[in-house]
C-alpha cells in the first residue's frame, strides 16, 4: 500500500520556525489537497517529504521508509516542485530523456508521457521558449515518467489556462482512480474544491485541519479555509481539535 505518513515534522530556518510539528497521512486512491496561504510552510513540508530539506525534527515516510531509502525513488514517487527546474537550452524531450535514462526507463516512455501531457511539437524546442503553462506540463510529464504510485505536486495549476486546469483536474482524478496516492498543494481554493477528496490545511507552519473535504466546518471550503487560517481564534482551535477527535 502506498501512503505518505508525516509525523511531527518541524523545520527551523535560522531562528524562524517555518514548519511546526506537522503530522498527517495521505491515503491511496484519492486526491488530497494540501492547502494554506502563501508562506504557510507547504513547499518546505513537501521538500522535507522528498528528502531535499532535512527536518529539524520529525519524519516523513513513503511506503514506510524515508524518501532517500527508496530503492528506485522515481519509480515510486513522482514530484513536481516548481516550473523553473529546467536547463533553458535543453529541449523538453531531452530533459525527459535524461530523466528516463537515470531512472532506467526505456526511451519510449518519454513519448508516452509527452502524449499524456499534450506538449505536442513543442517537445523538441528549447525550454527557454516555453510559457509557464508549458513548463508546468513538462514538469508533470517528468513526474509521471516513472509511472509512480505516489504523486507529490506543488501548485501544479500555476500558469495553466482554464482549459489546462480542466485538463489537469481530469488527469489527477484519473490517476487517483488508478489507485495512486495524490498529494496536491494549492492556494487556489475554487480549483481544489472541484478536485480533492481530502484536505490538509496548514497556517504559519501549524496543522489546522486534516480530514475529508465534507467534514470541514462552514458553508464552503472558502469559509472554512478563511476561518482556519485566520489569526488563531478559539473557533479555529475548536475546529482543529474536533477534526483531530473525529479521526
Amino acid at each position: 500500500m502506498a501512503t505518505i505518513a508525516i509525523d511531527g515534522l518541524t523545520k527551523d530556518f535560522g531562528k524562524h520556525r517555518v514548519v511546526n510539528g506537522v503530522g498527517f497521512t495521505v491515503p491511496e486512491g484519492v486526491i488530497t489537497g494540501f492547502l494554506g496561504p502563501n508562506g504557510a510552510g507547504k513547499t518546505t513540508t513537501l521538500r522535507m517529504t522528498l528528502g531535499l530539506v532535512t527536518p529539524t525534527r520529525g519524519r516523513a515516510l513513503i511506503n514506510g521508509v524515508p524518501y532517500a531509502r527508496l530503492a528506485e525513488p522515481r519509480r515510486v514517487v513522482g514530484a513536481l516542485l516548481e516550473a523553473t527546474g529546467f536547463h533553458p537550452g535543453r529541449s523538453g524531450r531531452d530533459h525527459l530523456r535524461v530523466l528516463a535514462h537515470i531512472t532506467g526507463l526505456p526511451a519510449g516512455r518519454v513519448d508516452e508521457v509527452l502524449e499524456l501531457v499534450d506538449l505536442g511539437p513543442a517537445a523538441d524546442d528549447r525550454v527557454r521558449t516555453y510559457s509557464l503553462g508549458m513548463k508546468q506540463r513538462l514538469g508533470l510529464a517528468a513526474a509521471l515518467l516513472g509511472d509512480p504510485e505516489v504523486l507529490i505536486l506543488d501548485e501544479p495549476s500555476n500558469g495553466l489556462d482554464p482549459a489546462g486546469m480542466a485538463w489537469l483536474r481530469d488527469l489527477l482524478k484519473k490517476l487517483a482512480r488508478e489507485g495512486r496516492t495524490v498529494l496536491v498543494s494549492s492556494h487556489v481554493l475554487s480549483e481544489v474544491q472541484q478536485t480533492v477528496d481530502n484536505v490538509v490545511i496548514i497556517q504559519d507552519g501549524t496543522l489546522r485541519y486534516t480530514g475529508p473535504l465534507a467534514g470541514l466546518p462552514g458553508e464552503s471550503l472558502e469559509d472554512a479555509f478563511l476561518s482556519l487560517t485566520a489569526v488563531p481564534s478559539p473557533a479555529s482551535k475548536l475546529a482543529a481539535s474536533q477534526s483531530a477527535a473525529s479521526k
Partner: protein
Amino acid sequence: MTRLVHNEFFKLHTTRAPFLLVAIAQLVVVGGISGVFLMGKDPNDVATVRLGFSHVGIVAIFSLMLGIMAVAGEYRHKTITDTYLATPQRGRVVGAKVVAYATVGAGVGMVSAVTALATLAIWMNAKGASLDLGASGIWQTIVGCIVWNVCFGAVGVGVGALVRNLSGAVAGALVWIALVEGIVGQLVGDSARWLPFRAGGAMEGLPSPGVAQLSQVAGGLVLVAYAAAFVAVAVTTTIRRDVT
C-alpha cells in the same frame, strides 16, 4: 555508478554551451601557437614545438569551467532538484560528476592536442621546417597537458560543489588564476609551486629557469589532492545543505 556517469555525458551533449567552450578553447590553441611563431621563435628548435604544444595545457581552464558548470550550473537552473530526486545519495552524484568531468577533460585535452598538432604542422611547413614528434620531450609535454585537463575537470567539479553559485564559482576561479595566484605566489616565494595553477603549469614539463617548479608527476598528484580535498569538503558541508 556507470549509469550516473553516463547520465552526466547525456546531460552534457544536450546543451550547446559545452560545445561552444570547447570551440573557443581550439581558437585559444590556434591563436597561442600562431603567437609563438609570429614572435619569431626558431621553428627548428624542439623547444618551440614544446612551447606550442603547451597551449593544450592552458585550455585546462576550459575543462575547469566545464567541471564547475556540472554542479553549480545544476544549482543555477534548479535541475539539481530532479538530479537529487533520482539519486538521493548526493555523494554518489558528485562522485559520478568527478569521473565524468575528468573524462571530459581528457577529451578536451585530446581534441586540443590534435588542433595543436595541425596548427604546428601548418606553421612549420610555412617556415620550411619539419615537425618531428619523436624529438625528445614532445610526447612528455603533450601527455602532461592532457592530464592537466583531466585534473582540472575534477578540480572544477570540486569547486562547483563547494561554491554552488555559478557566476561566483566561475568568477572566483578566473580571478584566482589571473590575479590571486600571482600575488600569493610573490608573497610565499618558492612555496608557490604548490598552488593549483602553478602545479598545473608544471605538467607541461617545460624548463622553468629561475622559478621553483614541481616535477610533472608531482604537479599531477598535487592537482589530484586539490580535487579530492574540494570534493571531500563539499560532500561533507555544502552538498548536504537544504535544496530549496
